[in-house]
C-alpha cells in the first residue's frame, strides 16, 4: 500500500541520473547524495520534533485541566513554528565571562549528536539509511555525545549553576548508561544480532515481540532511558527549582532552541529504541504486511513518547543521592539478573528464536 520506499527509490534514481547527466564526477555525486539524505532525515525528524513540542504542551495542559496553546492554527498546531521563528529572531546574548568556543559549540554538539542516531533507525519497511551491523551499539555510543555537549555547556557558561547541572548530567547519564546497555544485551542475546533491521524483522507478529521475553529488560531500559533523556523524574541537570535552569541558564535565542529541540529528539530516540527492540518496530502486530509500516512505527513511537510525557506530569523529581543509588544499587543488579536469566533461558530453551 502506502510504502514509501518505492517513491524514495524513484526520486533517488532521478537525481543520480540527472547529476550523472551533467557530467559530475562519481565521488561528488556520492557526496551530494549523502548530503541530501542527511537533509531529508533532518527534515523528517525536525518536523516530528516540532509536532512533539506542541503535543507535549497539549498533553500537559490536558493533565492539568487547561487548554494549552489554542490560538495559532487549529488548536494551536503551528504554535511551535511560531515559537521557533520567535526564538530565531531573538538576540543571541553571550555573557562576557564565558569560555566562548566551548559555549558556542556545546549546543551544536548536542544537536548534531541527537540527530546522528537516525542513521540506523528503521522508520519503515526499507526506510533505513544504513542498516549498520553494529546498530544497537552505534545508538548507545552516539547518545553519549549528548553528555559531552551538556558538559561543555555547563563548563562554558562559567556559571556555578550551569556547572552543577553539567556535573549532574554527566554523572547521571554515565551511571544510567550502564544498566541501559546491559538491559539491551538481553535482546541482543536472544536475537543474535546487533542490527536494528534484523531485530525488527525477527519480531514479525505480536507474539514475537521481545518485550514478552524481556519484560525485566524492558523495564530497566525504559527507566534508564528516561534518565538518559533527562526527563522527569530524572531531570536533575536542569532542575529549574534548584539550579535555575541548569546548563541552559546562560543560553538564549537559537542556541537555547537547539538544546530544547535536542531534548525532544532524545525523547523520540528513546521511544524509537524501545519500539524497535521490544515492540516490533515498524512490524504490524498482525503480520509483516498489514498496513503501512511507517504508520505502525510512528504510532508505537508516539505512544511511548506519550508515556514519557505522562511520567513527567506524574512523578516528582528524585534527589541526587537517590538517583545514583537507584542506578547502581537497584537497576544494575537487576540488569545483571536479567542477563543471567536470559542466558539461562537460552541455555534451557535453545532454539527459542
Amino acid at each position: 500500500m502506502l510504502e514509501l520506499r518505492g517513491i524514495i527509490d524513484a526520486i533517488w534514481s532521478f537525481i543520480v541520473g540527472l547529476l550523472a547527466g551533467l557530467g559530475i564526477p562519481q565521488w561528488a555525486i556520492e557526496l551530494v547524495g549523502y548530503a541530501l539524505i542527511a537533509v531529508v532525515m533532518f527534515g523528517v525528524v525536525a518536523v516530528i520534533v516540532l509536532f512533539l513540542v506542541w503535543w507535549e504542551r497539549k498533553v500537559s495542559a490536558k493533565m492539568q485541566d487547561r487548554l494549552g496553546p489554542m490560538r495559532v492554527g487549529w488548536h494551536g498546531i503551528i504554535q511551535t513554528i511560531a515559537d521557533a521563528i520567535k526564538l530565531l529572531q531573538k538576540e543571541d546574548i553571550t555573557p562576557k565571562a564565558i569560555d566562548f568556543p566551548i559555549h558556542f559549540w556545546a549546543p551544536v554538539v548536542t544537536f548534531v549528536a541527537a540527530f546522528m542516531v537516525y542513521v540506523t533507525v528503521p522508520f519503515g519497511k526499507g526506510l533505513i539509511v544504513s542498516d549498520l551491523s553494529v546498530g544497537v551499539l552505534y545508538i548507545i555510543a552516539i547518545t553519549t555525545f549528548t553528555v559531552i555537549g551538556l558538559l561543555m555547556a555547563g563548563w562554558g557558561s562559567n556559571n556555578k549553576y550551569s556547572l552543577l547541572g553539567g556535573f549532574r548530567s554527566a554523572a547521571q547519564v554515565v551511571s544510567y548508561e550502564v544498566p541501559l546497555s546491559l538491559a539491551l544485551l538481553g535482546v541482543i542475546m536472544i536475537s543474535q544480532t546487533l542490527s536494528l533491521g534484523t531485530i525488527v524483522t525477527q519480531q514479525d507478529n505480536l507474539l514475537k515481540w521481545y518485550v514478552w521475553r524481556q519484560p525485566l529488560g524492558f523495564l530497566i531500559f525504559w527507566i534508564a532511558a528516561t534518565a538518559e533523556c533527562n526527563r522527569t523524574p530524572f531531570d536533575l541537570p536542569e532542575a529549574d527549582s534548584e539550579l535555575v535552569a541548569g546548563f541552559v541558564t546562560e543560553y538564549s535565542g537559537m542556541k537555547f532552541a537547539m538544546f530544547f529541540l535536542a531534548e525532544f529528539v532524545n525523547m523520540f530516540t528513546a521511544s524509537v529504541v524501545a519500539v524497535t527492540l521490544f515492540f516490533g518496530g515498524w512490524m504490524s502486530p498482525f503480520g509483516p504486511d498489514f498496513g503501512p509500516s511507517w504508520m505502525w512505527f510512528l504510532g508505537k513511537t508516539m505512544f511511548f513518547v506519550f508515556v514519557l510525557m505522562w511520567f513527567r506530569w506524574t512523578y516528582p523529581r528524585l534527589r541526587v543521592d537517590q538517583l545514583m543509588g537507584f542506578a547502581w544499587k537497584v537497576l544494575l543488579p537487576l540488569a545483571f539478573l536479567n542477563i543471567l536469566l536470559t542466558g539461562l533461558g537460552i541455555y534451557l530453551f535453545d532454539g527459542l528464536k
Partner: protein
Amino acid sequence: MTEISLTNLTFYILSFCIIAGGIFTVSSRNLFHSAVFLVFTLFSVAGMFVMLNAYLLAAIQVLIYVGAVAMLMIFGVMLTTRLADVRLRHVNEQSWPALAICGFFLAFLVYGLWDTPFTVSGVPMPADTAHALGTLLMTKYVLPFEVVSLLLLAALVGAVVIAKKD
C-alpha cells in the same frame, strides 16, 4: 588515476582531523579545550576504524573512549581546575629538548616507514566482523577476556578505594 576517490579523500580529511586534534590536545593552554579536542580526536579515530572495516571497534571506541574515558577526563578537569585559572606555563622547562627528541623520533619513524614493503594479504576483509569477534572472544581469547574483566573489576574497586575521602 586523476580522479579523486572518496576513500582517499576521507582518509586525508580524517588524518588531518586526528593529527590536528592531537596537536591541539597537547598544546592547548585551556585544559577543558584540550579535553574537547581529545574527544574530537578520539571520534576521528573511530572514523578511521570504520575505514578499516572495524565497525564493532569503532562503536566500542566511541562508547568507551568518548562515553567513558573522555567523560572521566572532563570530570577530572572540572574537579581540579577553575575556569579562571591563569597559568604561567602550561608546559615544563624541558619542552625544547623534548621537541627536539620527538622531532628526531618522528623523522626516524617516517624514514623507516615510508617505503617499507609489508607483505600485504590480498584476502578481503569479512563484512560482518562483529560476529567473528564475538566468537573469537568466547573461544580462542576467552582467557584474556576473563583476565580483562577481572582487571576492570580491580580497577573499579581500586579507583573507589583510592579516591574516596577518608
